[in-house]
């Protein structure tokens, strides 16, 4: 990443999804174990394995443990997720709020929803137990809300102490990577603040798509653009359109 001097004025020859996927892949390290929802999160993990993290172990929601075979849903959730031994959980959602809580259940009231979403899947326990959570989402005003309509997966709840009070072992959201930039929890408040923008994206554009008063880091960075090698590798992985919904 490079320090921001002035807002870049054009995005490069890559799509917003490609930028998100590359940025998410860069957060993963070799030797880690990660669990990634289907679609874009899974693709970010696969990309990391091809680029800089050949020994990243990817566990998926169907129980696949890397290339080592498959375990049943009970074992997946008890021995692998709940035990807290997974380093990174990659999640997505239809809504995220200032405290990084995710909603994949309903928009509107539970009993009379405006939109019924798919539901929880493994997200509540991934969010609770993985050492850290990386969220990938499209950055839109309807999705980045002050308070999610339904807490499907806990971020920091209503503030900094909630996770500890609930006895959670996982550290919660460490980074939210969107198609506009990167948000990270403020160490003092756990509120998500903007710490980087992608090339060609301005802070005001991010604020306009964020439903709370977005704090901006003093050290705001501009994400390094995807390298030709990153893009070529990613494009060799991609078939079909990515799916975003956290699962």
């Amino acid at each position, binding site marked *: 990443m490079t320090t921001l001097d002035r807002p870049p004025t054009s995005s490069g020859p890559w799509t917003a999804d490609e930028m998100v996927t590359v940025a998410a892949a860069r957060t993963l390290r070799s030797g880690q174990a990660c669990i990634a929802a289907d679609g874009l999160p899974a693709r970010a993990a696969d990309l990391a394995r091809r680029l800089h993290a050949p020994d990243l172990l990817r566990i998926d929601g*169907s129980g696949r443990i890397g290339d080592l075979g498959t375990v049943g849903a009970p074992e997946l959730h008890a021995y692998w997720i709940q035990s807290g031994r997974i380093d990174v959980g990659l999640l997505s959602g239809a809504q995220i709020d200032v405290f990084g809580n995710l909603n994949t259940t309903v928009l509107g009231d539970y009993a009379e929803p405006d939109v019924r979403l798919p539901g929880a899947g493994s*997200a*509540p326990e991934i969010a609770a137990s993985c050492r850290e959570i990386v969220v990938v989402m499209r950055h839109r005003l309807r999705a980045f809300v002050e308070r999610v309509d339904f807490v499907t997966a806990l971020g920091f709840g209503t503030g900094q102490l909630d996770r500890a009070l609930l006895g959670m072992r996982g550290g919660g959201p460490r980074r939210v990577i969107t198609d506009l930039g990167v948000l990270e929890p403020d160490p003092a408040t756990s509120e998500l603040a903007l710490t980087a923008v992608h090339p060609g994206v301005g802070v005001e554009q991010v604020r306009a798509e964020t439903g709370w008063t977005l704090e901006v880091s003093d050290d705001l960075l501009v994400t390094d653009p995807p390298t030709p090698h990153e893009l070529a590798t990613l494009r060799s992985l991609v078939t079909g359109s990515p799916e975003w919904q956290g699962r």
Partner: protein
Amino acid sequence: MATIVPLTDAVADLVRDGDVVAVEGTPALIPYAAAHEVIRLRRKDLTLVRMSVDVLGDQLVGAGCARRLVFSWAGGPGEGALHRIQDALGHGWPAPLEIEEHSHAGMAARYVAGASGLPFGVLRGYAGTDLPQYTASVRTVRCPFTGEELAAVSALNPDVAIVHARRADRSGNVLLDGPGGVCKEAVLAAHRSLVTVEEIVDDLGPATGATVLPSFAITAVAHAPGGAAPSGAAGPHDREDDSHRAWDEVSRDRARFGRWLEGIRTP
């Protein structure tokens, strides 16, 4: 010991109006043939229990078989909706639909408790989420050693469980397609069970106990080659995506769904 019976007879015998019916199966092996028999037999007032509700669930709800869903994920193609389920939830068509929703971890723990003869399961789950306030089958339990509070979920013991598997031998022992999902737990948790299989063979071949369901723990086995179609064909992902897209078209429209339903019901 499991009896080996024709599919229609098995469904007619084992699935009764008002039953709690678990239908499980990894994406590659979904028991569509058995579910379509349920539709043909016009079973009604079922509670459908299924961790990942997909096209099969949409079909059973649209056909008016299920009045209640117990699930932890209900999603259609891509980000798409399951239109028949949305229609039932939003407009009560063809009948109102109740839901009871969980996380995958909670559902897995409920099946495990059911298969284990325990009344509840314990997990680090649901904490801080809004799920428990809408789900009576989630409570808390305190560790008698540490005092820590954990989530408790009530055991699932469906009236009947239906799964699809690769093969059975002539005694009714079943080789599951691997340890994925909760097929084994669903069968062991249920009071009655039906396993549809691709083939019935003399010898199951090499297997570990982890992927075998012995005949004595199953009620009925039905030979249903292709019984998981359109899931489970070679190249599962492409095939599944295609069929999901095709289903989206059918499901979007009540009339078009009605024609699909007529096709299913016409012998």
